[in-house]
């Protein structure tokens, strides 16, 4: 069984090199079949490991270098259910994206498939590792592969500029992380997460520890796109190829947050334990700001992929609230939310890809009513919008309900309002765009002006006939949505994750397992709680989103006084916020620096 652990990473990597070596020897279908088979087998490996790890977490030492006297000489993988849930999601999304790409754009020979497989190996390695520097290496590997994938459509200026902004900001994030690692290595003389945690726990929470922590989380915030480190994300997502967007929105940002939870609970919990209340306030506050900024920016977008990108920012904010509550219940809820939301958003991006295929555009206004011929895609799109809102039984409502409840329990009862507001503001524009594009609802000049179409892409991503939608395209979109729906109907889903979350948060048990090979004792399942309240909130959110979408479509019919209030009250701050998203990489780096300084200041004041 343990042999599957290295294979989960090595299989996709080796498959990528084989594909690369076979260049020109095979044809396109050969690459497709081979890549799908490789990703699919990784998915199976991940599922087997996941089920196995719920019975007993496992440690694997590369090169057989198991620790001597608590000193780790080599690199370890730690198989536990939370990490493996994310790894499984990654494998599932990569497989789906490769299937979706069957009819998709003309790839440059095999290079697209090669990169997708390397990306998969990178994500799984990132999830499973128990070593701080390996975490950095696989972070870099994910990043570099993502830069290349983002810039894949070189015929577009926006795509190139987006990937350059992406690469510069994320590289700086990586250097911050490496500096943080250097500080921790200087203090503890270790790179193993558990060993660093044990070493730090005996020392003070001084400047070095706080700085290292700030550098690490700032780096992961860049990847997760937390405000004000988020500017690169909409630029990149709007212009990257659709199958790549699915991975970026569905798993890449989420992995940044996973890393924050991982490094906190394995290394910093002991030394920061006393300041946890303050740390929680900082994290929940940052998450709330991110959720709001993303949601507010989402509304005025007419480029559908950019719209979905800002909704990703908003949802990342909500995940951060969940992770930042620092409790096992909230973590379990966040994992459920994150997985189901990733699937829904993936499905929405797939639908946007179908639009691109059929109409060569994802401009909401430019495509007004043009999607009438593809009503089934329209239905999928609208269902996806409702899934974002958290309409039961989409799994999203379960996760949100648990985060809300746990937040209230910890004294953050306003989180419920935040989650509802952000959900409405991100789901409504999706519904609005869907209703307009697929059914032609609403007047054409909704914004009272005709600017040039924003969603036109220089070249379509597909070369096949545009009068039909290849079945594999909508089947994958439907499959993602279906899995999210089914997940919501599994009773007590998050309760089942709670023992795993308990272990995730137990620094002592983790260190015992990694450094001394002591298996954690089993935790009984907590009693299941009915989610009736959450279901009602989900229903209300969905209804409110439908109502807001209708307002967006027919806002010309609102009374003049109300329009005046909206224009005067919201216009200027809106405009200022939009202007900050300038597309200028220098601006982004300046904000990144400010973000590090502010985070450092906040934590120094509250923990130090």
């Amino acid at each position, binding site marked *: 069984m343990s042999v599957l652990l290295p294979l989960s990473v090595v299989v996709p990597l080796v498959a990528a090199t084989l594909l690369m070596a076979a260049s020109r020897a095979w044809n396109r279908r050969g690459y497709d079949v081979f890549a799908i088979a490789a990703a699919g087998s990784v998915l199976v490996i991940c599922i087997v490991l996941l089920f196995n790890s719920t019975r007993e977490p496992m440690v694997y030492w590369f090169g057989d270098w198991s620790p001597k006297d608590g000193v780790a000489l080599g690199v370890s993988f730690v198989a536990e259910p939370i990490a493996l849930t994310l790894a499984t999601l990654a494998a599932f999304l990569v497989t789906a994206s490769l299937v979706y790409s069957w009819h998709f754009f003309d790839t440059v020979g095999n290079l697209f498939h090669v990169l997708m497989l390397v990306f998969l190996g990178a994500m799984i390695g990132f999830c499973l590792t128990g070593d701080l520097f390996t975490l950095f290496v696989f972070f870099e590997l994910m990043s570099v592969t993502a830069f290349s994938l983002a810039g894949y459509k070189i015929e577009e200026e926006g795509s190139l500029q987006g990937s350059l902004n992406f690469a510069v900001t994320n590289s700086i994030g990586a250097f911050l992380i490496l500096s943080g690692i250097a500080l921790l290595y200087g203090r503890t003389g270790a790179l193993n997460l558990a060993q660093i945690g044990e070493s730090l726990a005996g020392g003070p929470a001084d400047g070095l520890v706080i700085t290292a922590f*700030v550098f690490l989380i700032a780096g992961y915030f860049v990847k997760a796109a937390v405000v004000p480190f988020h500017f690169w994300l909409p630029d990149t997502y709007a212009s990257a190829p659709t199958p790549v967007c699915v991975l970026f929105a569905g798993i890449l940002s989420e992995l940044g947050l996973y890393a924050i939870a991982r490094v906190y609970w394995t290394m910093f919990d002991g030394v920061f334990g006393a300041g946890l209340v303050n740390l929680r306030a900082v994290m929940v506050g940052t998450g709330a700001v991110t959720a709001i900024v993303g949601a507010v920016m989402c509304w005025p977008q007419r480029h559908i992929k950019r719209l979905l990108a800002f909704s990703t920012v908003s949802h990342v904010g909500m995940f951060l609230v969940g992770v930042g509550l620092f409790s096992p219940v909230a973590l379990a809820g966040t994992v459920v939310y994150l997985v189901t939301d990733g699937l829904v958003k993936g499905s929405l991006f797939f639908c946007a890809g179908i639009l691109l295929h059929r109409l060569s555009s994802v401009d909401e206004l430019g495509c007004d009513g043009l999607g009438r011929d593809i009503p089934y895609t329209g239905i999928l799109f609208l269902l996806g919008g409702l899934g974002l809102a958290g309409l039961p039984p989409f799994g999203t409502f379960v996760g949100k309900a648990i985060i809300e409840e746990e937040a209230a329990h910890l004294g953050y009862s306003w989180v419920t309002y935040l989650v509802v507001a952000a959900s409405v503001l991100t789901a409504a524009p999706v519904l609005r765009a869907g209703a307009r594009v697929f059914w032609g609802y609403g007047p054409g000049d909704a914004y009272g002006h005709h600017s040039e179409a924003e969603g036109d892409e220089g070249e379509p991503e597909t070369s096949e006939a545009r009068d039909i939608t290849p079945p594999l395209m909508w089947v994958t979109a439907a499959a993602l949505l279906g899995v999210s729906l089914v997940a919501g109907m599994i009773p007590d889903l998050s309760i089942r994750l709670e023992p795993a979350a308990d272990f995730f948060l137990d620094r002592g048990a983790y260190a015992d397992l990694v450094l001394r090979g002591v298996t954690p004792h089993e935790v009984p399942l907590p009693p299941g709680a009915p989610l009736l309240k959450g279901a009602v909130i989900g229903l209300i959110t969905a209804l409110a989103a439908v109502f807001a979408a209708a307002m967006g479509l027919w806002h010309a019919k609102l009374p003049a006084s109300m329009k005046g209030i909206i224009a005067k009250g919201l216009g200027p701050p809106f405009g200022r916020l939009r202007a900050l998203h300038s597309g200028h990489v220098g601006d982004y780096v300046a904000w990144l620096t400010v973000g590090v300084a502010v985070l450092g200041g906040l934590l120094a004041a509250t923990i130090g």
Partner: protein
Amino acid sequence: MSLRGRRNLFALGVLGFSVLFLWGLNGLPAFGHYEGVYGITLNRVAVTQRHATNLVAAVTFDYRGFDTLGEEFILFAAVVGVAILLRAQRDEAATPDEEDEETKDESRDAPHTSDAVRVLGLALIGPTVLFGLYIVAHGHLTPGGGFQGGVVLATAALLVYLTGEYVALRRVSPESVTELAESVGAGGYAAIGFIGLLTGQAFLTNVLPLGMTGQLNSSGTILLINLAVGVGVAGGFSLILAEFLEQTLLVREREHG
């Protein structure tokens, strides 16, 4: 944002950033007095455990070999990325029916070089290749190894270009060869990892005979991995250089032809 606004924002940010950074650095052990348990343990046990005199190589390719596998794939992914980004001009210049024709390459003008440079360059190619191979092969004994030696080997390919033998280079090492080297390097590293699995031990376990400390044929898989990395790095850097050169050459070709 205006340049001024950006400068002001950055000035604020970098002030806070620097204070934070210096505050953190202040907590480090004084320069020259580091006593980290990881490094000290390795310095004590590694030579006997691994029969490698260059401990840095032992750490890179054995104790932390999995990290290096990841690094090797970063290189791999970056090279693929460069190939994707710079592919456009090739498509523009080559019409479908002439893509694979070797004869077409003859028309590509290499830059004019004086005879003196040419002779010097040609004379340097051999020693450069030898030097690169030496650095790769002695990585486990003395400073050097696959990463450094690989770059040196790639500069040998560049020398060929500088001496105006680019056309020859394209015939000797067309792109598919560098691509193959790139995949063999990265894939070979992973394959060496499988040797451990086959003998029932962990991935990347150094199961080969360790040999006599200090001899070329020692330290087991470290030497093999060094060779794989050398091939991968040399292939990767040559591919990058070739892609950039291809671009300049094609432009020149369009101008003259």
